[in-house]
């Protein structure tokens, strides 16, 4: 089983990287781009385990390590 975790920085937390890319895209000629946010996805593979198990394990990983509870939210999707 594989889980894909999408980790997003909360809207009110600054995203200097996104802001810099936005300006760069405008410079590149895409004047209509008014906002860019950068996030991460983490693909975790745990072979030989069932959906239930993977979901709860990955939630634990997110809470403990993968996501930063201070500024990020996460969403888990189970593949296969």
């Amino acid at each position, binding site marked *: 089983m594989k889980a894909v975790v999408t980790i997003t920085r909360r809207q009110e937390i600054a995203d*200097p*990287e996104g802001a*810099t*890319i936005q300006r*760069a895209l405008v*410079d*590149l000629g895409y004047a209509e781009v008014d906002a860019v946010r*950068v996030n991460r996805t983490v693909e975790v593979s745990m072979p030989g385990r069932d959906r239930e198990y993977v979901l709860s394990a990955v939630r634990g990983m997110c809470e403990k390590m993968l996501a930063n509870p201070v500024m990020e939210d996460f969403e888990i999707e189970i593949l296969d």
Partner: protein
Amino acid sequence: MTVGIVAFPGTNCEQDVAYALESLGAKTVTVWHRESSLDGLDAVVLPGGFAHGDYLRTGAIARFSPIMAAVEKLAAEGRPVLGICNGFQILCEAGLLPGALIANRDLKFICRPAHLRVESTDSILTRAATIGQVLTIPLNSYEGNYVPGPEAPNAVLRYCDPDGNVTEAANPNGSAEGIAGIANGAGTVAGLMPHPERAIEDFMASTDGRVLLESFIASVEATPAGVASG
């Protein structure tokens, strides 16, 4: 003979490179990335730093700066083009050198001297060195882990141990085949992760950076004046 040193927003080694090249007898001028011409200059260095904060990917935004068209033109004329650290990353992103640089194997920034073995002397960076020579030059990067593209790169410097052996243990950042520096086929465009300008005076980690910078200066002098410098 004048060397242009390009500064992008976030570049921070431009003064250091200017100081080092001038102390070795070259004339330099700093060129802001918004400029579009390098006319009158005989060679160009893209120095280290964090152009555009290294956001998105290192070098990814800088390669679209107006000055890069002029850098490409200079390279096409066969004039010396050197990228140091972030400059190397930018040259790769711009396609002037093959491959890419990703995060160090241990996910740590590395600031310490590395041993390098000279693999080829057919480049603007190494013409004054000898093959097999071991140089000690400081690294200063988070994304120094070289990933080759489809074709094999022309490696001019590899990480090695103090005796010149290229081993996995001597590879500080996980670079493919221990690559620390490469050149294009003609040897006129070169890039390396370590900072030769940080190894030029007695109080520094070594003075081995001189041989690389002297190679570069000698290459500039040896390249016949082209249309650009007319």
